[in-house]
């Protein structure tokens, strides 16, 4: 039997190891599935590289170079082996190492997604609270209407509309792209995070230009996420409000706002964290349509282009990045929920194997 100090030490360590193992297994499964799916797609990857007009000899050479003349399990095995050495392969569409492609594309998406989720959480939580303050009231109806709109209007259309109004008509926003062309190529260091890069340039004009290009897509994505956050949080708040302790608090004369803020919100914080994590990870998958309309060189566009070209190395690389961020965010959310909500800790202790 272990001593108390051993349990204190090994307990959390084992927990972390178990989580890491689960994560690795999940990613392995994800990669295998993606690999098989991309091979099952009715697209000939050789044709995509060699082209429609190429001769038979060229076709055969490309097929060999892509390793497609080998059996499927061997292809996957080789990929995983190289992955262990940190080699993600070379994209057949960009002819660049997938790792360097991703190092450019992912920060662009990460930047958009992070600003959007921060904005969406602040506004989303505020709107949900306002809405739950007086369910069925005019404010609640307005908020529900607004979030329904965010849910159902195609983002592509909204993006074009935004460009027309704020870029073309009012000149409040920059056009498609991360910076005006005059500035884009005067940046020396490129980390992919456009605000950081323009900040480091030390030129206030470039920074201002970057912000003018950034705010519209951020606002758009924030609106979409906010719609989901508001709706789910509002529902959770209202459900919680029906519970007995709320009735008791009200009977004791507590104000509605105080009840919501001090009692109900902490109780739904677990839901809130999960909803935020899910929203954030869906933003990190890359908002393909937004990135297309705003000519934003993010991971969503990278993955779509790769999919259409059956560029397996790029598809697997992008899947790995998106999958890892999804798993990591979920783990983070799980841990946060454990911290915030004592009830979930109890569940964890009672059924350790279920987590």
């Amino acid at each position, binding site marked *: 039997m272990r001593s108390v100090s051993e349990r204190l030490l090994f307990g959390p360590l084992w927990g972390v190891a178990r989580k890491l193992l689960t994560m690795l297994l999940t990613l392995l499964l994800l990669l295998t599935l993606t690999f098989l799916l991309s091979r099952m*797609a*009715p*697209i*000939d990857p050789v*044709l*995509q*590289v*060699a*082209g*429609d*007009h*190429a*001769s*038979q*000899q*060229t076709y055969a*050479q490309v097929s060999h170079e892509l390793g497609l003349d080998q059996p499927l399990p061997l292809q996957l095995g080789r990929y995983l082996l190289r992955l262990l050495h940190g080699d993600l392969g070379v*994209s057949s*569409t*960009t*002819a*660049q190492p997938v790792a360097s*492609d991703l190092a*450019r*594309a992912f920060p662009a998406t990460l930047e958009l997604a992070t600003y959007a989720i921060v904005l969406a959480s602040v506004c989303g939580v505020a709107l949900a609270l306002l809405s739950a303050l007086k369910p069925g009231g005019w404010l609640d109806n307005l908020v529900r209407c607004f979030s329904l709109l965010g849910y159902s209007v195609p983002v*592509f*259309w909204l993006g*074009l*509309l935004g*460009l*027309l*109004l704020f*870029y*073309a*008509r009012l*000149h409040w926003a920059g*056009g*498609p*792209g991360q910076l*005006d*062309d*005059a500035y*884009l*190529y005067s940046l020396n260091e490129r980390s992919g995070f456009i605000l950081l890069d323009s900040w480091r340039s030390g030129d206030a004009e470039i920074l201002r230009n970057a912000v003018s290009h950034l705010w519209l897509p951020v606002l758009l994505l924030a609106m979409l996420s906010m719609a989901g956050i508001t709706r789910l949080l509002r529902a959770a708040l209202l459900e919680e409000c029906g519970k007995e302790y709320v009735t008791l608090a009200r009977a004791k004369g507590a104000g509605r706002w105080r009840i919501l803020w001090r009692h109900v919100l902490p109780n739904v914080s677990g839901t809130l964290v999960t909803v935020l994590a899910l929203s954030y990870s869906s933003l990190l998958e890359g908002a393909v349509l937004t990135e*297309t*309309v*705003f*000519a934003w*060189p993010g991971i969503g*566009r*990278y993955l779509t*282009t790769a999919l*259409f*070209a*059956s560029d397996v190395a790029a598809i697997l690389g992008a899947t790995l990045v998106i999958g890892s961020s999804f798993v990591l965010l979920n783990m983070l959310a799980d841990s946060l929920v454990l911290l915030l909500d004592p009830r979930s800790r109890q569940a964890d202790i009672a059924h350790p194997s279920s987590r």
Partner: protein
Amino acid sequence: MKKISYSMPLLASLTAFCYPALAATPANTLVIAQSIDDTSSFDPAQGFELTTVQAFNNLYQRLVQADVQNPQRLQPDLALSWQLGKDKRSLIFKLNPKARFASGNALTADDVVFSLARVVKLNQEPSFILSQLGWTAQNVDSLIRRVDSQTVQLSWTLDASADFVLRLLSAPVASIVDSKEALAHQQDNDLGHQWLGSHSAGSGPFRIRSYVPHEALVLDANPSSPRGAPKLKSIVIKNVPDAAARRLLLEQGDADIARNLGADQLAGLAGKPGVKPLAIPFASLYFLQINSKASPALGNPAFWEAARWLFDYQKIANQLLQGQFQVHQSFLPDGYPGALKDQPYRYDPDKARAILARAGLSNITLKLSVNNQPPYLDIAQALQASFAKGGVKVELLPGISAQVSTKVKALDYDAVLTSWGPDYFDPHTNASAFAYNPENGSKTLAWRAGWHIPELNRQTLAAIAIADPAKRAAAYQKLQKTVQKSSPFVIGLQARSLIAVRSNLKGYVQGVNPDMVFYDKVSK
């Protein structure tokens, strides 16, 4: 019915009230908005997409070049002169002794030998253009020879006229690369292939400053180019994947040229101040290709004949996709030597019905594979309606372009609405696609249509050996007539390249072939 993307009415109504453009591109920089997602490599031995071939004319030079105003005329580029060898199977080129690459290296015969031989050795997509001369990785070093530092001799084993060979040498794949520069960046004996994928080593009026895939291609002027210093200092070709966004950038003055616009976008730009919409003749043909092996009915020439009368040429060109197409019914595009311009077919469903009845064909259902993008899907929908009136039921099978071409190459289709662009400026490029199906496995268009044509194969090969240009043109006219009269191809439309430029732009030149784009004379 005309299909309009849902953004268009909105664009039209909102932009109508736009303020005059505030933004302007830098005075010494040309900003081009287009999609560059098609790029594979900026190595001329590999690049074979619109974005890359359009760049090659500005980055590299060839020995000879087609006159862009009159492409049927060849003119010297890096070669000062050339003469036919005594065996009539070789050409001797004298190079321009003053020519230098952007790196400062002198251009010599070694560079020519290196550049042409590496295309064959690397064996990438466009290599067939040169290897059809009989050049292989094994023999190419003996067939392309340095005579002295300024003289090169090229020989070939194919029975081909010098005129044909010169035409091949004017293709982007025959660009002359700085061998010292390329070899200095060689990795694993790749002849500089990897490095040249995103760098340039040529003598053209521009050089690559940076290329970021899916983002931008930036070119700097090369003032020492033998073709002369360009007027502008740099070019930014910016990836804007969405056509409506490209149009917006141009209207706002944030781009000087917007490429690949749709017919809707071009119509919306008409009459806008500061903008000039252009519909430039383009050597791309749109046609219906029937898989004659799919069923006995589809292999019946009577069905092919009926299909010719069921294609509503005028309506598609003049009403559905106004300005984007002209009616064209032969396999050589308008602008090519020997191209047939006559239009023997028109939409006549009654005639088609009669032809089908006479052949005993009834209740035909045609599964038409088609790219799900405009204009393909729009045309396919029009065909669905026009074929129905002739008693042929058309089912559309839309898919992404990669999916459609995979199916076609696997012969897993009934019919496909597709397009074909020439690979170099010579009639053989399309003859070898539409009227050539050798039994050795080369997957030409005729092969994809399951069409076996030993006699046409012979005529197609014979035509490249004819030395007299007039006789050669006549041979291609005969081939076109045969394909037009009876083949599983219903050629209906020739595209125009729809672009728009700012009105202050001067000196932009674009020719009929996809690669014929020149930025060196552009000023604003």
